[in-house]
């Protein structure tokens, strides 16, 4: 279509502007947001597809440290929108040359903070994926940068905007579940037990592995790590609690009036996968396959629980959040929508199906992206803004610190400090590999 249109313009010897009957149509077209993407993997490509589908954006730059997803995304952008985006390996160069006014950051978690802050400082609005960061200090620095630059930031927590999440929240907030005392968040996987190490391998052609590792430790290249597998390598992410936990813990903070828990305790391990392996020859993942985290709020207790094995087992649902109230149990799910089980067996179950703008991956990125653009244009706060997403990210990150130290943490949510435990507090930040520098003060 686009190629045809360009062809037509060429043969007609006219420019696009001259052909348009109303000058304001052209003006509007010119006002398209200039969008650049950092991290052209699975999710980055999903976001950029929505940016193109919105018809309000032009993709001006694509950046990845691996040529294969970079060219695959460029190819897709060209066939879907007719645009030839400029391609980069280094996001700093992209920010300078492509001059985007919106930057999408969809890199692995260890690479969220620096590109996000650089994008904000370049004057761009930011769409950054969840969890906001890998360690607490990074997310704090991102928040500072967003406030200092006064930019709009949307975080990829699409469950804040999904239709069944919204209607489910209304149902709970209308008191239909009664007084809620416990919330339980959980993900159950279907791994088959004992994890075998995979051999370390040569870095694939066209991949800058040093840059991929960036500020995080540079491990020998292992095909388990990328794409996608970095979620379960603690150098680059925070396991299932970081990846999935943030989505469901965010639902808790969306529901409650409280802003943070008073204390956090987590325990778990690799009880089924076995001890982590990381030698010169081979590696396994190293994130816990079993984890429980308890968050003490003033008016309720929240419990996270994941198990990457065992499958459906005895539970009605495999994933999501149970809100336990005086009138029954409310389950907020994913592909299974939401369901309310009244405590009185005489009453009937209430259920609502999910609705996704992308049924394949089960998300509502379309609405989240539209809300982001609206927020920029209307100068308002978007649905999953950085402040709320930052607070939701604190929960899994604190859970991981408690799991590492094996102790309960007292959290001063106002000042964002761990009380009376300097050793744990040190884990709110990490050493960066040189030449990168940990952001903020």
């Amino acid at each position, binding site marked *: 279509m686009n190629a045809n249109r360009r062809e037509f313009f060429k043969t007609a010897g006219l420019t696009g502007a001259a052909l348009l009957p109303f000058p304001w149509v052209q003006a509007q077209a010119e006002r398209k947001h200039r969008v650049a993407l950092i991290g052209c993997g*699975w999710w980055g*490509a999903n976001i950029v597809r929505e940016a193109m589908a919105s018809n309000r954006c032009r993709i001006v730059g694509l950046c990845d440290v691996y040529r*294969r*997803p970079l*060219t*695959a*995304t460029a*190819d*897709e952008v060209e*066939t*879907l929108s007719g645009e030839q985006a400029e391609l980069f390996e280094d996001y700093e160069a992209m920010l300078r040359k492509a001059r985007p006014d919106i930057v999408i950051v969809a890199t692995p978690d260890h690479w969220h903070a620096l590109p996000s802050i650089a994008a904000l400082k370049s004057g761009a609005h930011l769409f950054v994926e969840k969890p906001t960061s890998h360690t607490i200090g990074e997310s704090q620095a991102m928040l500072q940068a967003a406030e200092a630059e006064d930019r709009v930031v949307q975080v990829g927590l699409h469950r804040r905007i999904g239709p069944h999440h919204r209607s489910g929240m209304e149902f709970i907030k209308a008191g239909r579940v009664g007084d809620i005392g416990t919330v339980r968040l959980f993900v159950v996987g279907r791994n*088959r037990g004992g994890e*075998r190490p*995979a051999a370390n*391998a*040569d870095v*694939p*052609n066209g991949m800058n592995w040093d840059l991929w590792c960036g500020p995080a430790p540079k491990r020998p290249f292992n*095909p*388990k790590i990328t*794409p*996608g*597998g970095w979620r379960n390598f603690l150098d680059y992410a925070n396991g299932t609690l970081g990846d999935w936990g943030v989505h469901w813990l965010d639902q808790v903070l969306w529901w409650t009036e409280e802003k943070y828990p008073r204390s956090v305790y987590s325990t778990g391990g690799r009880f089924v996968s076995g001890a982590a392996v990381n030698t010169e020859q081979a590696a396994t993942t190293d994130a816990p396959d079993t984890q429980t985290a308890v968050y003490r709020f003033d008016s309720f207790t929240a419990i996270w629980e994941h198990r990457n094995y065992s499958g459906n087992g005895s539970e009605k649902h495999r994933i999501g959040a149970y809100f336990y109230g005086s009138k029954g149990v409310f389950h907020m799910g994913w592909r299974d929508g939401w369901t309310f089980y009244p405590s009185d067996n005489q009453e009937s179950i209430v259920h609502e199906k999910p609705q996704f703008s992308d*049924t*394949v991956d089960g998300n509502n990125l379309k609405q989240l992206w539209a809300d982001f653009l609206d927020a920029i244009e209307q100068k308002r706060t978007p649905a999953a803004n950085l402040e709320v997403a930052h607070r939701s990210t604190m929960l899994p990150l604190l859970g991981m610190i408690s799991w590492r130290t094996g102790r309960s943490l007292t959290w001063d949510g106002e000042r964002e400090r761990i009380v009376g435990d300097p050793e744990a507090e040190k884990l709110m930040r990490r050493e960066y590999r040189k030449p990168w520098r940990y952001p903020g003060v």
Partner: protein
Amino acid sequence: MANRFFMTRTLPGALSFWVLTAATPLAEDWPNFRGPDYDGISDETGWRKNWAEKPPAVVWKAEVGIGFSAFVVADGRALTLGHIQDQEVLSCFDETTGERLWRHRFPSELGAKFYIGGPGSTPTVDVANGLVYQLGKWGEVYCLSLEDGSVKWFRNVAQEEKLSVPSWGFNGSPLLSGELVVLNLGPAGMALNRQTGETVWSSRGDAAGYSTPVPYEDIVIVSSGDGWSGVETLTGATRWTIDWATRYGVNAADPIVWDGKVFVSSGYQKGSGLFSLNRGELPRTWAQRLFRSQQNAPVRLGAYLYGIDGDSSSRAKLKCLEWETGEVQWTEDTGYGAVAAADNHLIYLRADGRLGLAEASPKAFEPIAETKVLTRDCWTVPVLANGRIFCRNSRGQAVAVDVRTLP
């Protein structure tokens, strides 16, 4: 076509078979992935199509292990691969009774990376010499006796030649050609001497794609994660290339050559393209994103292609495409699966285990009937041979479905 005649039909065993069956409806062995013509189309006629009146029945069942290997059928035997308890297993069955004749096994990793894992290649039978060739998931190459599965020769080619291993292992099937067994190992294929296993030519660098080498004239077509190459069968010298970068390096569906052109297709939102055969970088006739073969190539009948568009995780559909233009003629909401053809009919297996039969027409989807033969997930192409359709699911349940016309 000429190729196939040369390779199987002029051999003594095949000749007598040919003479015997000439007067009756044509039954046909299926000794390699995508069949004797490497196109997924069987020449078999006279098999039973009145499924609507009488659904075909399962005549035997077997457990073959986790994986996506298809069946091959030759010399009264049916063979396929699977992963069973830390081993890759080649099972050889009696084609008519399902009795297990022998198994060949060796230790292997399941490789369950974002999917159930297991081997994805299909063994190749050399009927004339009574041999079976097997490419293991991690680059092990075996030449076995068809009679009893004993090892004639073995090489761990990936390890010996230090090849990059693609994320989901090696999934292409061995191609027998002249003195060679050609494999999709390395970025542009590899050939071994089929009697000794010695390397005749090889390619180095990036990892291979997941397709099976497809022959035409003096060339075989092989894939990497970033494109396709036409290489000279005897030397491995590159005659032409197609730049075809895919998000996860998955070029898995076998290309189709016809009428001076080559059709390629990949999943993960990539799409299809038609290219004119030439030298160097091939010129493109068309490319589109409405037909994306993640694993299974379509079948070409006349000037139309029939196959599954979309990934196993998506709402995939059965589509008909025009060869010349790439335009979609019709779409049927089947979900994921795979399609074979015979006697101008489509034989398709849906991911949920429904085996379907339809008349092949570019005008519309013309279904005849469907019958449930397996449970999820069926991602492997069904194989018609000698009046039976051999199907399997990813967990390793296999069935032979009877479509013989009884006298």
